[in-house]
Structures are given as C-alpha cells and as structure tokens.
C-alpha cells in the first residue's frame, strides 16, 4: 500500500501504514468526531459519527473502512454535516440534561460535540427513562442516564484489563451497560482501576468524589488535616490549568494545599522510598532462599485485587509490603498524634492520588485499627484540581512552596514510582548496592524503562542473575501469569501496574485520551528524578533516621506491624454457589470446588462419585451439596469442604471418610435432639 495516495477533501494524503480511513483523515489534520474509536481498542463502528462520503461507495464509517489507492473522500458535505447533527441531537434526546452539575462538565465529549456542531436546540422530545445511578463502589459512580452506548468502557475492561466486569445487556431501547445480573459494581469482579471512567466520553462512569468530606475536615478546627501527594500527580495536575502535560508543579501543589487549608503537606514519594527498602529486603531474603519466586510488587491495589480473585495460587507471591499510600497512613497515625499533640482520631490523612483504586484500598479492612482508618480520604488528581478551582486559586501563578519534613523529603527513586518500571528500577538501585556492598555512581537502569506493556530485563548483580518482568495493563499481567503458571517463563521479580503506562496513566488523572499525554508525564517524572539531589532510597537521610528512632531495621517486628500486610483470596462475584442437593435443616454442608484449577484436577468426577455415594447410602436427607467457586487452595486441588473442614487433594476415599466422620457427629446430634 506504500507509495500510494488517497484524496481527502481534494488533498493528496500518502498511505503509510494506516489500517483505516479515520487514521488517514486525522493525519490530514481533519478532526473527525468519534465516540467509539480508540487506537488501543478494537474497532466497534457503533457511534456513526465518523461517516464520510467516498466516491463510488456512498456513506461509509471511516473507522472501519480500509483505505484503497486513489480513494476520493469527502469529510464535510452537507449530508454528513446534517447527519452528525442528528446523531448528536438524538443522543441528547436520550440523555440526562443536568450538564452544569455533571462531574464531566467541560471535559465531556458529547457536550463538546454539541457545541462544535452549533446545536442550540434539540428538536426531539427527551425520551430518557431515568434510572438510579450505582454508587455502591468506593471508587466509581456509574450513571446509566449519561451513557451513549459507545462501548468504550466495555472494551477497555475486557480487552485491555481482561476483567469484563461490565457489558451490554438487554436490547434495543432497553440496552444498558451494567455488571452481570444487574448487580452493584462493588458486588462483582471490578478491580476499581477506573480505566472505564478514563475512557468514557461522557459522565456515565466517573471517579467517586470525596471532596465534600475533605472540605468538612479542613473546616473543622479540632482536626489536623495531613496531605500526602503521590508522585504521578505532580506531572499531570498542571494540565487542568493550561500547562502542558509533564510539567512539574510540585512547588505549586504544596502552595495550593497550604492555601486550601491543609495543616501538613507530605510526599507519598517518602514512603515510596520506604517501600523500596522493605520490598528489597523481602526480595533479597526470598530470592536467596528460593522462597515464593517470582516476587510480585504490591503497590497497585487494582493488581492486588486482580490476583486475589483470579490467581489465588499466586497470592502469597505478592510482596507483603503495603503500598506507599498505606505505609504513609500507618506512620502518620502512629507518629503524628504525639508529635503534633493531638488525639489519633483527630489526625486526618488525605491522599492525593492519580488513582481510583486507591479509594478502595484505603477502605480495605486490613487498614483500619480500632475504628480509625490509616488513610481517611483519597482524592484523585481531578478532585484536587476541583478544590483548587473552588478555592479560587490561580494555580499557574502560585509561587512554589516546599513540603514539610520529614515525610516531605524524597529521593528520585521514590518519584519514579509513578511510571511503569519505576518500582523495579528503584528496587534495583537498592539491591545492586546492598548485594555488592559498594556505592555506585550511576543510578539509571534504563533496561526496565519503555513503552511496551510487557518488558523483560536480565541483570547481573554481584554475580547473581536476575530476570525481571515489568508489566502494565492487567490483560498483559494475565498473559505473564499464565506463562509463569505453565512454566514457560521464569522471573525473579514481577512489577505490575494495572493502568497502561503505570500511575501516570491512572484514571484519577486529568482526562486524556491521547497516549502522547501519558508519554510526556512519564518523561516528566524521569526528569524530576534527575533534578533531585538524591536518587537512591537508601540515601534518604530521613528514612535512615526513621529506622533509627521508630522502626529498628528493615523487616523488623515494628516494620512488619506498620508497613506490611496480608492478602486474602476472594470470590469474583458474591453469592454464586450452585445448590445441587439439599437435605433437611440439620444437614451437613458439602461443597465441591468447581474453580478452573480444581475442575482441571477432576472435581467434576469427584462430585459425581460423592453424589453416587450419597445416593447409595441413602444420605439424601442428611446432606446439602453445593458446587462452589474456589476455596483458594488451587495449588492443592481438587478441594472440597465437608462441614467446616477443607480437604485438599481430595479423592473419593478421603471424601467418604470425612462424610463418615461428620456423619457420626451429626447422628449423635440428631439423637440428642430426639
């Protein structure tokens, strides 16, 4: 196809490697409108906004029409202009009309198109059947009244993240995008990454706002409100105030937080430095003893939930380190109340994060002690931007200010955490010195940097060969995990971030759809690293001091209490057991796992044999049999549960024995009752 041309509005445009007309038209610098076209997703062709006139073909959707040489394309005929207007008008006629109070107002593409096409009046009667929004999730709000059914969220969730928590349901005018069986978002397999909200052109999926709660605590004189700012925020928030993506605004962020009324301003990069020491300590220990290798990073809460629900056999491969956000929360609650002389419940920790899953993480039960949460509120970059607007601050004009010590001091290693590959690089900067016992001049490990969603690096440190995988996007993570499981791949350390590109591309960041924006933010963070005096977490003097005064040494008992956590395996969807046979009220419960792994290990045959046994012994009235999904013992399947006992590697003999044992107890109980 190279060396040939198409004619777009009479201009000759060379065909290079473009797969469809839309890409060529955009190359010709004509901004053809679309809802459902994204270069990172499959082509869907639903919104019909990219219709163009092709000589000899009539009207065709540009996104799904491959270019052929000499094609004559018109993008702006009277017919096309009329049609675009009608499409937008029809969408508006079936759309919530509360634009001024919508979270997406000013960044909404439907609003932008209505303005661009000069639609001042919708000629059709509003047909919206008002449905209640789903506010169950701690991270996201789904408002079906604002959905244009472009399917972007459905495709990013299944194609990029391999989760598929939402999909189209019903048909025709009843069509909606919802979780399975119309359940609430917090009842299903959603990992809260929020990529759906990032890609949603309207306000149908948005990050859940905690702005009001934060203002309330700021205005409460008895509360000391402490902010922690994640690395990726500093290179993105400027976009909301007209600065180019990637512009570092650390000083302005500190100034804005102070002006808004935060009492203390700290940097999550400080606890990222702390994470590096704890996680590297764990890594060295595990890799030298061959214990649970590969080690998986645990900074990303969407990734953690993903492992917990899809790969239970790998849960203990996750580093036990809390994420930097939660390390900060624990330390702040432990240290600040005595230091600032306030009651622990009056210290309010607010995180400013590029992420929606961090809201979910802060609410995990593991991070609450005696009713006090380690992190009280999580604001996304967007929400923080809105607070700046609400306070009437001219962000660009703010004179840079500094963070408070000691938790405001960071090294470059803590800052690059916001990039995919950043955690690995920071760990390598520590491990390479720790294992050799020498100080190195250089600090950049560029082999773990890059754009690809799956990157591998082999490094030799002090005579040890380490293989690393750096992964972003959960679909990529699934591919890597499957290869590890099948034995095709071996790694020592696997870094995973749920969002493509890492935290800089998080769903809490200012709205963007062009991957160039993310690239510039990534570059911004690496530049930040270079500008800082220190680049290695172990050189952070306040970290050294913290170990001296509070924590003891890396991996100490105190460090474990404050900085480490545990995980659990979880069902993807609540209440999904299949009842196969029910006895009377006093019956013994038997559940047979039908999870993928147990199924492959023969749970279907086992269930069949158990049912045969029950039938032949006439135990029907005395047992309830369920097919269940996953008892989190996948490595030792097939697993069954008899009463309260879990039996791994179960055979029919083991099952019969267990039923007999429980059966005796049951018979006695029945006898006593009679």
């Amino acid at each position, binding site marked *: 196809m190279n060396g040939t041309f198409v004619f777009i509005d009479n201009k000759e445009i060379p065909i290079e490697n473009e797969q469809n007309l839309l890409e060529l038209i955009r190359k010709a610098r004509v901004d053809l409108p679309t809802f459902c076209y994204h270069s990172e997703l499959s082509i869907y062709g639903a919104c019909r906004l990219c219709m163009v006139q092709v000589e000899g073909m009539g009207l065709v959707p540009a996104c799904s029409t491959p270019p052929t040489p000499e094609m004559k394309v018109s993008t702006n005929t009277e017919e096309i202009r009329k049609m675009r207007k009608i499409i937008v008008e029809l969408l508006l006629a079936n759309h919530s009309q509360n634009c001024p109070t919508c979270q997406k107002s000013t960044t909404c593409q439907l609003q932008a198109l209505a303005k661009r096409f000069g639609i001042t009046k919708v000629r059709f009667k509003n047909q919206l059947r008002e449905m209640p929004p789903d506010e169950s999730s701690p991270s996201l709000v789904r408002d079906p009244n604002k959905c244009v059914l472009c399917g972007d969220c459905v495709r990013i969730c*299944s194609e990029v993240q391999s*989760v*598929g*928590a*939402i*999909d*189209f*349901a*019903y*048909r025709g005018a009843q069509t909606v995008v*919802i*979780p*399975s*069986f*119309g359940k609430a978002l917090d009842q*299903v*397999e959603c990992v809260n990454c929020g990529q759906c909200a990032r890609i949603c052109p309207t306000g149908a999926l948005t990050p859940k706002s905690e702005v009001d709660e934060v203002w309330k605590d700021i205005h409460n004189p008895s509360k000391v409100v402490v902010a922690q700012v994640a690395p990726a925020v500093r290179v993105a928030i400027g976009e909301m105030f007209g600065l180019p993506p990637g512009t570092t605004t650390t000083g302005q962020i500190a100034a804005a937080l102070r002006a808004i009324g935060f009492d203390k301003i700290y940097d999550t990069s400080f606890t990222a430095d702390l994470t590096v020491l704890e996680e590297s300590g764990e890594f060295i220990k595990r890799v030298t003893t061959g214990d649970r290798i590969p080690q998986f990073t645990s900074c990303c809460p969407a990734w953690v939930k993903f492992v917990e629900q899809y790969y239970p056999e790998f849960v203990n491969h996750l580093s036990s380190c809390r994420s930097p956000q939660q390390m900060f929360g624990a330390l702040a609650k432990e240290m600040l109340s005595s230091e600032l002389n306030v009651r622990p419940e009056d210290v309010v920790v607010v995180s400013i994060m590029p992420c929606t899953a961090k809201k979910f993480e802060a609410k995990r039960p593991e991070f609450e002690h005696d009713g006090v949460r380690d992190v009280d509120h999580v604001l996304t970059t967007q929400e923080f931007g809105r607070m700046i607007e609400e306070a009437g601050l001219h962000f660009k004009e703010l004179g840079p200010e500094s963070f408070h010590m000691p938790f405001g001091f960071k090294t470059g290693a803590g800052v690059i955490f916001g990039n995919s590959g950043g955690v690995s690089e920071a760990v390598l900067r520590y491990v390479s010195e720790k294992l050799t016992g020498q100080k190195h001049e250089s600090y950049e490990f560029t082999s773990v940097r890059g754009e690809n969603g799956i990157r591998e690096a082999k490094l030799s440190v002090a005579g040890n060969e380490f293989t690393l995988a750096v992964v972003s996007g959960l679909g990529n993570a699934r591919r890597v995990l499957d290869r590890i499981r099948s034995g095709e791949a071996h790694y020592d350390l696997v870094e995973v971030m749920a969002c493509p590109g890492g935290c800089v591309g998080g769903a809490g960041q200012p709205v963007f759809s062009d991957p160039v924006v993310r690239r510039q933010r990534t570059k911004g963070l690496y530049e930040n690293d270079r500008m800082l005096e220190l680049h290695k977490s172990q050189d952070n003097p306040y970290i050294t001091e913290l170990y001296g005064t509070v924590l003891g040494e890396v991996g100490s008992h105190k460090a474990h209490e404050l900085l480490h956590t545990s995980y659990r395996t979880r069902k*993807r*969807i609540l*209440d*999904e*057991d*299949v*009842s*196969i*046979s*029910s006895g009377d009220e006093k019956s013994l419960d038997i559940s047979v796992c*039908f*999870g*993928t792994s147990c*199924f492959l290990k023969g749970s*279907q045959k086992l269930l*069949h044999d158990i*049912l045969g046994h029950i*039938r032949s012994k006439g135990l*029907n009235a005395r047992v309830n*049999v369920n*097919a269940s*999904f996953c008892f989190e013992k996948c490595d030792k399947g097939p697993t069954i549960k008899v009463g309260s006992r879990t039996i791994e590697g179960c055979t029919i003999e083991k099952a019969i024995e267990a039923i007999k044992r429980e059966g005796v107890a049951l018979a006695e109980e029945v006898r006593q009752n009679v």
Partner: protein
Amino acid sequence: METIRKFERVCEIIDHNQRNAARLIPILQAVQAEYRYLPEEILTFVATSLGISPARVFGVATFYSLFTLKPKGKYLIRVCNGTACHVKGSMGLYGAIVKKLGLREGEDSTPDMLFTVETVNCLGACGLSPAMVVNDEVYGQLTPQRVSDIVDEIVLKEAQNESDAHGA
C-alpha cells in the same frame, strides 16, 4: 435428586460443546431446556467454565427474547399478537387467560407455577389466527371461551395426574 441430575446435565452440556465460548448460545439453549429458565448461579457457572465473564453471558442471555432469567410455569402459554392475530382479537384472548388464571397487574405466572402467560410477535401461523402455543402445541382460530376451556382441560389433567401419583 432432581437438582443433581440437572447439574450433571449442565456439566455434560458444557463438555459436549467442548467448553467452547463460541458455542455459548447452544449451551444456553440446552441449559434452558433443562431448567425451563436460566438460573443466575448456573449462568455464572457456565461463564466460569467457558473462561468468559459473567457480564458477557448475562448480556447474551438478556439480548435474545428466547432466553428467560425468570422461572416459568410448567405450562407456558404464548398468545400470538402479530398483525393478523391482533386484528382478529388476540388481546381479548390474552385478557381472558389472565382473568381465568387470576393474575394481577405485573404478574405473568400463577403462584403454583403451573401457568405462565406471555405474548409473542407472530408465531408464523397467521392462517390460524388468532393463535397461541401451549408449550409445543399450537391452537388456532381461538375464542375467549375456547382458551378458557383449554386452561380447564390442563388443570383437570394435572389434577388427575396428581391423584394417580397418590393412588400408586
């Protein structure tokens, strides 16, 4: 033991379709033939077995009007409301059945789950209009009196089966 047989049948259906996600529709058809509807936990089980998300299975199950997620009565009465039947007074038939079964507004099944009544848009039996189908049996040229009699006949047959079962 009925549920055991059904569940084993679901496992067979999935295996018979090579656990192939592309065969989701035939799988759902076979499952519905077994349960007379698609229970939620069975759909989740099917999704897990095929390695696709339950939301996708739910989407397919709600897209086709052939599938139902609500339990249906033992006798499913489908009154045709296609153009020809409509003109010949199918809604009158529908009203007569609803009245006969004592269904209230918004109800489509009797409390004993013996009957479910619904309308369909054309059975393709326009020559017999107004027509209806009870399970697989087609009835044509109906009148409100006739549909009422058909319901009575079924009730009578059921009562006889019941007493036969008890007598045995």
